[in-house]
């Protein structure tokens, strides 16, 4: 049974229409700009890009590239998030470790991605570079957010835990971790964007055999601009999809435990 009230349904469809109109508006601007430029090589028309995309999606190598790129970046992202959490835990547990690790993490945050990619290309195989880059970009974001969240947590709740002698495990499980969940969720979403973009950039430079990045690079080399746009469009769509999936997964993680 549909329990949505008619007013809400109407509002939702109105919002969807507005969003669709906004997209159409920008596609129209793109069309006008490409007509003004008049060269598909510099700025292809939306139709040319859709055609190029249609040509790509029927090829098996397109899907293999997408799957492998996603696997590399998501592996790096998972490593980065885990490393960020562990680093944050270490820094929150010990001031000495915080002093020791902080300069390294800050240095990683300040170093340009391109420098890291080029260095990583010297250190490891082509396929490993995007994984490392995604991890390198995700970890400091998660670390910084969690440490900040820990420092600004409600100390009165920690005092309550102490007064009721909850012990380290219960305090961590039911007081500290749930208090950090908003910071963790926000940082996971931000880190996903960083991991995705740096992972693709790493693929463009290191060119692993089957990857979106390598295909973007070859499209540029062979001056196939519509294909370059088509690959970029795929990256954008995948990024939106991944963000939606991660958002849904994080939404299922409530702050704290309360099971029946």
């Amino acid at each position, binding site marked *: 049974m549909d329990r949505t009230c008619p007013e809400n349904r109407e509002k939702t469809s109105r919002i969807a229409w507005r969003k669709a109109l906004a997209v159409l508006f920008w596609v129209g601007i793109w069309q006008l700009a490409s007509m003004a430029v008049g060269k598909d090589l510099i700025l292809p028309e939306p139709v040319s890009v859709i055609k190029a995309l249609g040509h790509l999606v029927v090829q098996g190598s397109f899907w293999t590239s997408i799957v492998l790129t996603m696997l590399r970046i998501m592996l790096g992202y998972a490593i980065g998030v885990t490393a960020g959490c562990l680093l944050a835990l270490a820094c929150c547990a010990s001031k000495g470790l915080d002093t020791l690790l902080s300069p390294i993490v800050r240095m990683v945050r300040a170093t340009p991605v391109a420098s890291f990619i080029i260095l990583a290309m010297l250190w490891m195989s082509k396929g490993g570079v995007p994984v490392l880059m995604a991890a390198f970009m995700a970890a400091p974001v998660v670390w910084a957010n969690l440490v900040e969240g820990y420092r600004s947590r409600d100390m*009165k*709740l920690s*005092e*309550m835990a*102490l*007064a*009721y*002698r*909850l012990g380290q*495990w*219960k305090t961590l499980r*039911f*007081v500290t971790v*749930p208090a950090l*969940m908003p910071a963790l969720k926000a940082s996971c979403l931000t880190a996903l964007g960083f991991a995705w973009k740096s992972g693709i950039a790493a693929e463009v430079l290191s060119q692993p055999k089957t990857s979106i990045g390598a295909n973007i690079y070859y499209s540029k080399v062979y001056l196939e601009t519509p294909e370059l746009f088509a690959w970029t469009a795929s990256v954008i769509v995948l990024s939106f999809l991944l963000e939606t999936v991660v958002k849904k997964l994080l939404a299922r993680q*409530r*702050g*704290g*435990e*309360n*099971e*029946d």
Partner: protein
Amino acid sequence: MKIENLRFSYFDNGTEKNIFNGLNLQSDSGIICFMGPSGCGKTTLLHIIAGLIRPCDGTVSNFPANCSVMFQEDRLLPWLNAWANVALVDKDRRNIRRNSQTTDKASSVLKEFGIDPEMPISSMSGGMKRRVALARALAFESEALILDEPFKGLDEDLMQKCAALVKAQEKPVLVSTHSEAEAKALGAQIIRLS
């Protein structure tokens, strides 16, 4: 309870603020109510007795170290429901999984206070949160109770009911309050701080 030569001060913007300068106190009463104007040090005194703050000097004796503290603020965990907030302080529980078929200590204490155990903290009124905080303090296995403005935000009927539940504990109780009516409802000895 005996307090001898208690001194406590803290620095606020570089200036030292003296809260207690050689406080001496002795009482044999089961329930003691500290009364006095805001900022006179009622909460600080309760925290010192509870062992949450170390005094600069002086001693507190003849009061159980294992005491249950109800803070001036509710200090409930907003991500847990009423039952879980109370069950959390049960020393025998490592986890907080509820079997709704069985009646446990947390459920029965909450029922006495007229609170639905399943109710989320976020959807509670100020008075309801206060009662959950008090229920938590009573559910905690302790030898004494330290209650900081326990009936704040409760109407007369609820205050009387809650005071009766506190009295029924038969433990030493220290309370801070601004209300003579609350002290009377508890049948407490009143100690005025200035």
